[in-house]
């Protein structure tokens, strides 16, 4: 019996890997995408183009502008001298932000009045706008604290001491790259499984498989193992790249990560095979794969937090295995989480895997066209 399954596994591997294009599709793009997305997917601001409209034009206002142009976050792209120039600058995306220093800026500051600084930000990308404003506020705080010290004014009676746990410099790569581990693992395991039964059905070879002495469970194992092995090998590679290339710290136990990875792969393979055995044609299989993949990625917490979603959508994400795996992979990498802390994430994936794998096996025989 073991021999039968082994033969089927070998046959599945051959079906996946013997075609040069199919082999390339499984191996090439995930690796390229890992590197590209690892650099591309960032919420950190770099070189935000800004322009200055300095009506004050004093040593003090120049000092303030230098605070911005000297940082890596901002890049001075132009100076303007008329109100009318602000609009085209922002509209045409030449600058994301315009600093408008009023003519009385340094006088007001010296007189102890509140000196006003106007900042105009392009809100087309609201997240960038919000972060840029936060940076501006921090720069201003530093600037006015230094100025007060220089003028020998008393410091404010309270101060804010901020720090961040797990990611002290708030590097968004540390958040995104572990997420990409989940993303690509999901894509690869779906690619391997979602079309595999549908293809055999369309070609008629699945009927032949069904009349062999193999039981549905054995067919299920034969169809799952290649996905599991390819998934484990590729994810291991991706995890290594995350650690050694992107320098994401791995603080927890690798065992906790692999337990999660194993359950995640099983859940994905189950869902992929379920889609595949539900569809009569490959076109339907592809459609099914997309229908699962796209919401699974967008509603997983990969880029936008689940906590920001409306209650009903949050409930829906409970069906998404990627949601749990992302918590595990980020927990193990950044928070040093152990198996005990992650139990609430493991069991839902195990339930999803069990349900989807058994429905796939059931559908093998029941779904005939």
């Amino acid at each position, binding site marked *: 019996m073991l021999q039968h399954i082994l033969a089927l596994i070998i046959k599945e591997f051959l079906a996946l890997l013997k075609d040069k294009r199919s082999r390339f599709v499984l191996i090439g793009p995930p690796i390229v995408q890992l590197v590209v997305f690892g650099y591309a997917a960032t919420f950190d601001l770099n070189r935000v183009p800004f322009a200055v409209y300095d009506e004050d034009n004093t040593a003090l206002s120049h000092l303030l502008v230098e605070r911005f142009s000297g940082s890596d976050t901002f890049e001075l792209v132009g100076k303007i001298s008329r109100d009318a120039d602000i609009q085209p600058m922002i509209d045409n995306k030449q600058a994301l932000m315009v600093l408008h220093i009023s003519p009385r800026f340094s006088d007001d500051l010296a007189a102890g009045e509140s000196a006003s600084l106007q900042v105009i930000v392009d809100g087309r990308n609201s997240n960038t706008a919000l972060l840029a404003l936060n940076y501006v506020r921090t720069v201003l705080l530093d600037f006015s604290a230094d100025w007060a010290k220089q003028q020998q004014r008393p410091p404010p009676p309270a101060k804010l001491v901020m720090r961040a746990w797990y990611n002290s410099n708030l590097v968004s790569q540390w958040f995104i790259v572990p997420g990409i581990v989940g993303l690509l693992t999901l894509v690869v395991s779906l690619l391997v499984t979602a079309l595999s039964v549908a293809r055999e059905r369309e070609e008629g070879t699945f009927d032949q498989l069904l009349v062999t002495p193999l039981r549905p469970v054995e067919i299920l194992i034969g169809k799952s193992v290649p996905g599991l092995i390819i998934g484990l090998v590729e994810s291991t590679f991706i995890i290594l790249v995350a650690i050694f290339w992107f320098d994401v710290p791995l603080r927890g136990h690798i065992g906790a990560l692999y337990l999660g990875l194993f359950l995640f792969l099983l859940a994905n393979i189950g869902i992929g095979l379920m889609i595949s055995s539900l569809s009569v044609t490959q076109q339907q299989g592809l459609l099914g794969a997309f229908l699962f993949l796209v919401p699974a990625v967008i509603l997983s917490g990969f880029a936008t937090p689940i906590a920001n979603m409306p209650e009903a959508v949050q409930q829906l994400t409970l069906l998404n295995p990627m949601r749990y795996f992302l918590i595990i992979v*980020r927990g193990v990498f950044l928070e040093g989480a152990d198996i005990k802390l992650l139990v609430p994430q493991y069991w839902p994936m195990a339930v999803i895997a069990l349900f989807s794998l058994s429905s796939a096996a059931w559908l093998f025989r029941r779904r005939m066209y």
Partner: protein
Amino acid sequence: MPQPASQLSRRRLAGMVRKESLQILRDPSSIAIAFVLPVVMLFLFGYGVSLDAKDVRIGFVIESPDSETSDIRAAFGQSDYFEPVVFHTIQAAEQAMREHDIDGIVWMQSDFSHRLHAGLGAPLGVIVNGVDANQGRITEGYILGAWQTWLTHYTERRGLPKAFPITLEQRVWFNPAVNSRDFLVPGLVAVIMTLIGALLTAMVVAREWERGTMEALLVTPIHIRELLMGKLVPYFVLGMGGMLLTVAMAVWQFDVPLRGSFLVLLVASALFMLVALAMGLLISIVAKNQFVAGQVAIIVTFLPAFILSGFIFDINSMPWAIQLLTHLIPARYFVSILQTVFLAGNVWPVILPNAAALLLMAFVFLMLVRRKASKRLE
């Protein structure tokens, strides 16, 4: 093999369009893909995708409560952003943070009020969970804002010198409420329509090859251009239908302001649809079989459109090599046009270069489709 006619024949083209249209009508899955799928996806994602942190659970550690500490708590409680939870020791708060019960801690030590009254720079300790760096930063920004409001009131009330001599007057153009949905929904339209375009066409030619009906088509006097156009036209009509539905949803369901003209939006959408369909057709022709075509479509459409288009991650912040790479992603140009036409209006210096790039891509893809397709016919 018959000599293909060098001129386009309207009759043959009409016949081909008719054949494809019938095929679409008889297998309603294409119609579902074009009309139902984008509506369902935009509905789900439009509500699901948001970067606005609301009701962030913040643990307040107040070691010795008095009127000053309750003032601070009140200042934070007024804001919609926070949901304060009170703790009495820092250990309890840290444990809650480890268990993901709270996302941040504001810590007032027992001598806080004493140092505040003495003007000794009383420290307000803040810890945020930095795993999600973006949310961590946004939370820090909110906390900074609440703290500044409180301290300004405090110094005013006591007649102390201004704590913040510079007041920041901020204007966020196009989206004064800084509502992330207004920015994300136009981008979602582009991501969803990339998928629809690829799904519609990625398998249509591969299917004909695999079923052997391509040979049947080849022995007719049909010209390859007529064959390709016959495949494109019906799907273009379908795709534009889906596009109009999603745009209508963005405007009426999600209340995204449409400040530019509808005509600009329509022309840009048509250009983009052409690129997306041509890309799908190219995949289908090159892959030869449906299995590989399906795999390639999954890989080259969704994730690049999601991550490299500027839909959510700002292209300006990417390293320059990646920025160059984004120029190969058609969705990038469409996202840029959509965000501008919706939120800013008809800003020609943004719209024209992006539309030109789409036009160029459509041209290149169609040329490639034409070349790859003719080779195989010989």
